[in-house]
């Protein structure tokens, strides 16, 4: 059973910089994200991963091509309209967490709800609920400076999912974490994809993330060069093997 994509990139070309420094970071990329699926986007440094994520997340506008969010084209949208799309459908997680250092964990989550016009008791209760869900019930009033990297990233995950977006986009979420915390965050993201029927895209270099993937998309030099999907019923380690085999071939 193949569900309709919630986020779809069609023939994306993106040029960055100008003049002599002009780079074609993406050279015609198409990609679809479906619910209940955790996709890894892997590729060497400079291959265009962050650029693609930004375009999928409606933060960057493509030079050509279209991004469709729940079937709707975003061509010709203004910066303000794109913000509205992000608000309604997309949650972000960043490598360096990007939490507000002056706000407590619960306030960091609440502000993501506040931006969407959700405030008051209900929003506070919801923020607490998601923080408990990511295992931070005991850190509600902690400020980012007093939390470990793993805890901070889990606050960021809570912030990304608090408003129930259909897509969660994460750029190198485990890069700044040790093995244990890296696994904890990936397990959390995989669970979010499964339990809440969201689509999760994780940009990563990190092979430790492979066991959690339903699908791995590879990008090199601005082009998608391969895609592996974990066959139905296959366990996570299989895909790791797939990756190993691939490496052996190369």
């Amino acid at each position, binding site marked *: 059973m193949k569900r309709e994509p919630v986020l779809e990139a069609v023939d994306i070309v993106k040029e960055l910089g100008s003049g002599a420094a002009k780079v074609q970071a993406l050279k015609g990329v198409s990609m679809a994200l479906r619910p209940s699926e955790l996709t890894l986007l892997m590729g060497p440094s400079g291959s265009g991963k*962050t650029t693609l*994520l*930004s375009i999928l*997340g409606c*933060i*960057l506008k493509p030079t050509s091509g279209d991004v469709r969010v729940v079937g709707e084209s975003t061509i010709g949208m203004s*910066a*303000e309209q794109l*913000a*509205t*799309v*992000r*608000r*309604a459908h*997309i949650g*972000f997680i*960043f*490598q*360096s967490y*990007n939490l*507000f*250092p*002056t*706000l407590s964990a619960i*306030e960091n989550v*609440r*502000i*993501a709800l*506040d*931006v*969407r016009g959700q*405030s008051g008791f209900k929003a506070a209760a919801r923020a607490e609920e998601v923080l408990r869900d990511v295992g931070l019930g005991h850190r509600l009033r902690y400020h980012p400076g007093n939390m470990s990297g793993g805890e901070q990233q889990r606050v960021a995950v809570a*912030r990304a999912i608090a408003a129930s977006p259909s897509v969660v986009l994460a*750029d190198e979420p485990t890069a700044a974490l040790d093995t244990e915390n890296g696994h904890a965050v990936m397990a959390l993201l995989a669970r979010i994809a499964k339990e809440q029927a969201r689509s999760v895209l994780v940009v990563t270099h990190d092979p430790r993330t492979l066991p959690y993937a339903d699908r791995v998309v590879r990008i090199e030099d601005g082009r998608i060069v391969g895609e592996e999907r974990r066959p139905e019923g296959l366990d996570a380690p299989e895909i790791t093997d797939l990756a190993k085999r691939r490496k052996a071939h190369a």
Partner: protein
Amino acid sequence: MILTLAFRNLFHDRVRLAVTLIGILFSIVLVAVQLGLYLGSSRMITSNIDNARGELWITAFGAKSFEDGGLLLHSAERHQALAAAGVAEVIPLVVSFAEWRRPNGGSTRVVVVGTDPEDGGLVPWSLTDGTWLDVKSPDGIAVDKSYLAELDVKGIGDTAQVAHGRVRIKALTEGVRSFTQAPYAYMPISRARHLLGAPGDATSFYLVKLQPGADVESVRRDLKSRFESAEVLTAEEFRDRSLNTWLFQTGAGVALIGGALLGLLVGTVIVAQTLYSSTKDHLAEFATLRALGSSSGYIHKVILGQAGLSAVIGYVLGMIIALAVVYASRGTPLPMVMTPWLAAALFAVTIFMCAISQLSAIFKVTKIDPAMVFSK
């Protein structure tokens, strides 16, 4: 959450907050002092006019202020005025500068104010020691407490020489100050004429009281047509003319208002600078907010919140200092005045200043590229 974030951003950097508040404080106190002095001066200048009861003033032609009436009017004008329809009473006042000989040598100037309060024209106000009945006893006058030292007398009972005669202090007022720094000396009109060596009907001003229901404008027109060398002014016009003379033709008012504007300008620049640098420091956070999907309006509100909070805190602190200055200037020759109106105006000024200040910060965030959230 907007206010929470604004508040935290503001208090995150204490040094910058201190600079911002000092900027606002400096502005408010300076503007408060300048405008307070302006108000104080205005009150001093118009206090006699404000306390006189009469709709119209007949003055010698070209009289520029309460102190500048001369002694050019006579009973002829009074009779002419009384003949006009709608006029109920015409009450004379004598006002003139005169030399006051200090008992222990030297002299100073006073403003002799001759009035008969029984007529219901100008009734000396704020008499705290002694009564008008005491003033009516031989040689009696009333002066303000605050000028006793200047006049070289100690209090009630002391005597001095004014122009052509002797006076004895019989009553004291409190808070009746003079912008020209020449103290007002209140006395019955006949004593004033006597001291000044003026003829028995010489008069500075006639205060005109109208009959109930009479139209001020038409009575004024009627009176005007009757005089050749006298003017007829409404109390309001006479006030304005006095203010204009003392505050603007002398430049004092211009200096006060100029000082206030300068304070405003300097404060605005300081606050604009600190708000701008705060916004610059928190740019990554604003970019994150933008990536999270916040509208630009939301971000503007955070900056506005910062400006507004600074304004409120700065205003409260500034007002405390301004009120302390008011208190301290109570006994000085130029007391500063604070009214609810001035306090409200200062608040408006503070808000305005902060609103202007945050424009540069707002301009900075409109150029935010949310893509910067991915740069490490």
